[in-house]
């Protein structure tokens, strides 16, 4: 019952907020009217003395009571409204996922449009004018985050492998759609009986080009929920991204010449040139900014905090620069993200990478939500002129054109493809051609004077968008299940696949060379060599430039696994890649040993361990002194992974020796305190500031204290002073699983290792998303 009340509360809050928006807006409007009337006698509304009132004001104002509490809404109106909208969008998103049944039937985009309709309706009731989706706001603020998110995380390999297909669909498909729809619409308009005679041929083509573009926002929103296989996803999505250039050119071409009523061949020829310029220019602009960003990030090692900013700002600049010249901003963004990603990721720290990822996802998610809500609101807000013929014919033509286009193109494309597109694939591609907000915004941009039928166009566009999003969006999921289309495989890329893919690349390049055939692999190989030799040296800082891709991949995997392992309870669960049969057998007897041995730890040893732990925490205390907002914790030197691996080897050897000992004792370590607790404890207990005696033969690495660190993440530094234990956990060798360091020995080394390991846990937690403080770590962090 409690979950229902929680949901109810949340929904009530959301609805309340939804009511708040129109009220706020109406208040703003009322405020304006009141001020113009000239209510100047401080009954709660403070005015500036330069009111157009004559001389009742100014120096010799009539004395009024000092206003204790004033209400000045106009001052913060715009940011307030924006924040309210964003809050509404986010609460809606939250709300939908609390109602599981609804979100599994209806895609989120539909629900958001409905919410927009409701809010718009409410606002109209209240009397405030609901805002329409301004094209400026859409194109400059709402669209870029989504495209950047898509471009930065674009899977390059499938994209480049299917580039030919994608381009065919994007360019030829969109052209076909536009002309087919435009032409037939014109024919229909000319038929007697409809009162659409006034619509010329060119406006029809213009309308056709606007309505025929597949929309990336809508595609993303719907396809993300159905988890379709990678090939189809990249085909439809890539098409939606790349058809922007075509749309831009067609739109401008027809818009320019609609007034004149005719287009000559010269114009068409220029249009083709324009298309090439627009698309290639956009890509070049994006690539240029991407390289700039990569180059800048190379020097960012001392100011890690602003690293994510470079990614965002450079990308946004590339979008804006492309828009200045009317080039394709979307392609610029995609190119920028795709170009900068490998270099920036090699340069920036792990935390910056996580930050970038989360910010991108956050912004794109909010943008998407806002777009759909505004679509709903604009529907209520706009002036509509409904024309049954036009609307129905458009919808039918859109569907027919899409199906014919996909089928025709696939027939041609399949002659060149290795993996042919089946009928099922074709159906999904055709069905997934959703229209969205871009079409609406483009229609909105039309001048009412030049296009008297603009309102009808807008109405039709909205209807088509609604149709595709609601009908096609809702039914695509059951259809995918019905047709048993292959779903996305959830398996993570294993190192085997990585090695084998690289091996295959070399193999196929070699075969191509033997055949004397300068094909796909030859050029890819050449590009890679060029990249390695020249580009990487420029753009990647320090030694990372020489790091082969395989090693980088391996490190990433290891780190991910280590984090997972620690988060999942510190070694109790095994990483999934480990074949369970081998490892589980080795673990079970050890575990049972430890449980029996638990109470046997002697008091003195326990005390020793506590002292060691405390003094380690003391070390952290020393670093707390100078906390600088502008630097993050000194990251573990990411080039020091080599040393880490070396140490791991040593630990493994040591472990092998330990495992031969019969008596395993686990040390129930005192529950590791969160840094705040430890700080407070140490603060109250000054006598623990005893410098720790150096322990036996544990190699201690002096870490430079120059970089001040934030309290939370201090343990990072400590971790590298001790042997890094848990990292070894995932590196189960064939040599049997000596899982965790069983502290069976009075040897101080193990104790060192264990608390080193605990610090390690804290390290790992820091590296991953900062979860709740470390207080809930188990007593038995390692599998004995």
């Amino acid at each position, binding site marked *: 019952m409690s979950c229902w009340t929680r949901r109810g509360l949340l929904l009530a809050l959301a609805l309340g907020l939804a009511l708040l928006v129109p009220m706020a807006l109406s208040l703003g409007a009322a405020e304006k009217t009141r001020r113009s009337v000239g209510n100047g006698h401080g009954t709660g509304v403070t005015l500036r003395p330069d009111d157009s009132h004559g001389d009742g004001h100014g120096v010799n104002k009539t004395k009024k009571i000092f206003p204790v509490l004033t209400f000045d809404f106009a001052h913060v109106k715009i940011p307030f409204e924006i924040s309210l909208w964003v809050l509404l969008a986010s609460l809606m998103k939250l709300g939908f996922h609390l109602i599981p049944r609804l979100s599994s039937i209806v895609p989120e985009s539909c629900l958001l449009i409905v919410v927009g309709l409701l809010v718009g309706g409410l606002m109209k009731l209240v009397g405030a004018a609901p805002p329409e989706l301004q094209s400026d706001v859409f194109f400059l603020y709402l669209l870029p985050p989504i495209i950047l998110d898509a471009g930065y995380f674009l899977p390059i390999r499938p994209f480049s492998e299917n580039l030919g297909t994608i381009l065919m669909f994007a360019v030829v498909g969109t052209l076909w759609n536009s002309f087919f729809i435009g032409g037939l619409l014109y024919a229909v308009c000319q038929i007697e009986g409809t009162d659409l005679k006034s619509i010329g041929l060119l406006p029809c083509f213009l309308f056709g080009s606007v309505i025929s573009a597949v929309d990336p926002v809508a595609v993303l929103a719907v396809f993300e929920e159905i988890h379709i296989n990678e090939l189809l996803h990249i085909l439809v999505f890539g098409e939606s991204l790349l058809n922007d250039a075509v749309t831009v050119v067609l739109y401008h071409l027809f818009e320019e010449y609609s007034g004149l009523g005719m287009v000559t061949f010269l114009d068409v020829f220029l249009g083709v040139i324009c298309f090439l310029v627009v698309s290639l220019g956009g890509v070049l602009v994006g690539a240029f900014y991407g390289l700039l960003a990569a180059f800048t990030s190379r020097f960012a090692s001392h100011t890690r905090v602003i690293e994510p900013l470079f990614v965002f700002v450079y990308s946004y600049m590339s979008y804006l620069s492309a828009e200045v010249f009317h080039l394709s901003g979307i392609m610029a963004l995609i190119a920028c993200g795709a170009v900068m990603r490998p270099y920036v990721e090699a340069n920036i720290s792990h935390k910056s990478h996580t930050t970038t990822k989360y910010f991108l996802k956050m912004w794109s998610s909010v943008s998407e939500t806002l777009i759909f809500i505004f679509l709903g609101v604009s529907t209520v807000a706009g002036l509509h002129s409904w024309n049954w013929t036009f609307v129905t014919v458009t919808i039918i033509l859109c569907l027919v054109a899409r199906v014919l286009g996909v089928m025709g193109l696939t027939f041609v494309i399949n002659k060149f493809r290795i993996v*042919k597109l089946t009928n099922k694939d074709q159906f999904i591609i055709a069905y997934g051609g959703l229209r969205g907000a871009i079409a609406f915004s483009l229609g909105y941009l039309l001048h009412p004077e030049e296009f008297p039928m603009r309102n009808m166009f807008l109405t039709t566009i909205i209807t088509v968008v609604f149709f595709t999003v609601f009908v096609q969006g809702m039914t695509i999921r059951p259809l995918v299940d019905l047709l048993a289309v292959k779903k996305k495989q959830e398996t993570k890329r294993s*190192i085997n696949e990585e090695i*084998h893919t690289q*091996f295959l690349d070399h*193999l196929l390049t070699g075969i191509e060379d*033997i055949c004397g055939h300068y094909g796909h692999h030859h050029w890819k190989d050449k590009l890679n060599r060029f990249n390695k030799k020249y580009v990487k040296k420029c753009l990647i800082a320090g030694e990372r430039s020489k790091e082969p891709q395989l*090693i980088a991949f391996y490190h990433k995997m290891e780190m991910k696994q280590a984090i997972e392992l620690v988060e999942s309870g510190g070694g109790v669960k095994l990483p999934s890649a480990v074949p369970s049969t081998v490892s589980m057998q080795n673990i079970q007897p050890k575990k049972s040993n430890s449980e029996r041995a638990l109470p046997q730890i002697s008091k003195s040893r326990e005390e020793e361990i506590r002292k060691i732990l405390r003094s380690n925490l003391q070390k952290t205390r020393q670093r707390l002194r100078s906390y600088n907002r502008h630097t993050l914790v000194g990251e573990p030197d990411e080039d020091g992974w080599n040393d880490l691996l070396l140490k791991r080897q040593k630990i493994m050897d040591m472990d092998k020796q330990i495992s031969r000992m019969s008596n395993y004792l686990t040390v129930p370590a005192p529950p590791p305190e969160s840094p705040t607790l430890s700080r407070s404890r140490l603060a109250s207990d000054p006598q623990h500031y005893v410098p720790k005696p150096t322990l036996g033969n544990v190699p201690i690495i002096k870490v430079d204290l120059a970089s001040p660190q934030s309290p939370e993440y201090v343990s990072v530094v400590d971790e590298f002073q001790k042997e890094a234990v848990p990292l070894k956990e995932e590196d189960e060798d064939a040599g049997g699983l000596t899982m965790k360091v069983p502290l069976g020995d009075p040897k101080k080394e193990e104790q060192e290792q264990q608390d080193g390991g605990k610090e390690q846990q804290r390290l790992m937690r820091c590296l991953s998303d900062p979860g709740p403080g470390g207080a809930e770590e188990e007593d038995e962090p390692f599998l004995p």
Partner: protein
Amino acid sequence: MGSSNSTLSKIPNLGRLIEETGFTPAHIKRLYKRFQALDKGNKGYLSPQDFGSVKELATNPIGDRIIGAFFSQGQETVDFHSFVRILAHFRPLDKNRAKRPDSPEPINSRISKLRFAFQLYDQDNDGKISRDELLQVLRTMLEMQVTEEQLESIADRTIQEADLDGDNAISFDEFRKVNADTFLRIPSPVTPSQITVWLIVL
């Protein structure tokens, strides 16, 4: 077209070759021209030195393994038939091949492709990729840019992921299971699309 006919007539057992490998006569003609170009001295067969004249193979990390794959056990020469037969491994899959249980596995099937790649890893032909063989492959691919320990960690990790029967080596079945999809999407290096240009290196 007269010259093409005469070229084709020079190739012995053309019909059997076409049937075994599935190449079209046009493809075989191109491959024969390439064979002749590589065959310095017109011996009628290829030796390892002829392969060495292909410049790019020298910079390829597994170039010598590829060359070695053309020469079956103990042989020093490759005639045209074997040449084409090896290259046939890289033809695209024939999707609509009827499955006749008694016919031999066609050369360009998925299994044959995987087996070919497997043999490149498994140099001593014992049917398994041992840790050492894997280390060797990694060493050549990573071209001496990493330390020995890193290589060993990677090799251990790789075997651990793929090894199902615990013998610390990767057998062909394990190899097949773990690499099931990587082979499928690749554009074929052997049959060019109509637009690509053949450049014969002289």
